[in-house]
């Protein structure tokens, strides 16, 4: 019998700090360093009026440098980089800044390199999800976004391996989000 999906709700303001600590670095696992180009992925989470959204939880999910997910659905799962966590979680600080240490994911099939990102926290009764891309090459999800908004989903290289991606929850230059 078909069951009704449970209603979700916001994390509220008191998501334990410990639950984020130690998950901002995806680039080493079981004593091994991840393969691929190591990067710092950082940016602000901002609310209406450009104000920093403090204490938000940012989660990411991405393929390894070869475009493989550590998940039973991925036919290449066995070859997933043992030095890479495909998942990470960070928390925004008092300035609304989050920061991950990760790698640029590989492309596969119909997908360009991209990182899934979810924003959770006070004010959001459901997670907000989007994708971060590294360039504007063909991608079945990128192309669902109206052309004039696509640049908002591009991480901006700042040199020294730092990529900036600001999340604007609402207001001017609002980040395009997907149906979750």
């Amino acid at each position, binding site marked *: 019998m*078909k069951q009704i999906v*449970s*209603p979700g709700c916001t994390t509220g303001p008191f998501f334990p700090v410990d639950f984020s600590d130690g998950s901002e670095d995806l680039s080493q696992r079981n004593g091994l360093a991840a393969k691929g180009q190591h990067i710092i992925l950082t940016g602000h989470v901002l609310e209406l009026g450009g104000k920093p959204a403090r204490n938000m939880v940012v989660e990411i999910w991405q393929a390894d440098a070869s475009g493989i997910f550590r998940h039973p659905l991925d036919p290449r799962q066995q070859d997933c980089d043992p030095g890479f966590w495909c998942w990470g979680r960070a928390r925004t600080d008092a300035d609304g800044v989050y920061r991950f240490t990760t790698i640029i994911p590989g492309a596969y099939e119909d997908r360009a390199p991209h990182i899934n990102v979810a924003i*959770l926290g006070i*004010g959001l009764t459901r997670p907000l*999800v989007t994708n971060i891309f590294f360039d504007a090459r063909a991608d*079945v*999800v990128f192309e669902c976004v109206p052309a004039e908004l696509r640049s908002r989903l591009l991480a901006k290289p700042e040199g020294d391996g730092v990529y900036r991606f600001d999340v604007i929850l*609402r207001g001017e230059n609002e980040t395009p989000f997907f149906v*979750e």
Partner: protein
Amino acid sequence: MMDDSTMKIDYAPYDDATQTLRQIDKYTPSATRVPSAPLIERPLTLSERTGPTELVSKWNVGKLDLCRLAPDSPRALGQLIHVTGRVTDEDGAPVSSVVMEIWQANASGKYIHELDDHRAPLDPNFTGQGRLVTDEDGRYEVFTVKPGAYPVLYSGWWWRPPHIHFSILGTSWMNRFITQIFFPGEVLNEKDLLLNGVPSRDVRDRLIFKPTDTVMGDLSYIGYQRDFVLRGHRQTPELP
């Protein structure tokens, strides 16, 4: 969830009638944080159909008891409760081996969190947070104390009724799940902005624990139960 049937899981869009509203009147942070533009539809690729099933190995996940620091330590203040339930998909199939994160206020309504400014005492015997993993039947259980109500200080009027926060990592990016579960019969439930941010009584009931047994023995406690249904159902096989 790692058998062949999981490989054909489909995700229908959420039915808004069964979910909490995105924008809730008087819940002011939703007015400044929920996007104004409509959410964009996209195809579901491998990237969305996979997710962090690997996390059991990342964290020290075991039996969960929030109300003492060690098996022979004194218990936290408050009413000892035992919370149990089952996590399934929309077919009622168990969602096993997924990580569940739980956090809550102590009996006096205080969280262990740097941003909790409520002037209530911490309890040295209460951990207030932890992780567990669902068993092969999708079941979970945790000993804790009934949380206290607490004021939402910025609001000037709103007290949160007792509730426990749950986060389930799920089996894919599509069924990541976070909620709050409330206690039956609480006066504050009537005015809570979040609990009442769901459209119907039926839906609200699924955010409230069911009382189960009271248990008397070496350990005496009150039982509460709450099942969770994560999104995802098996695709109907095509007829030959």
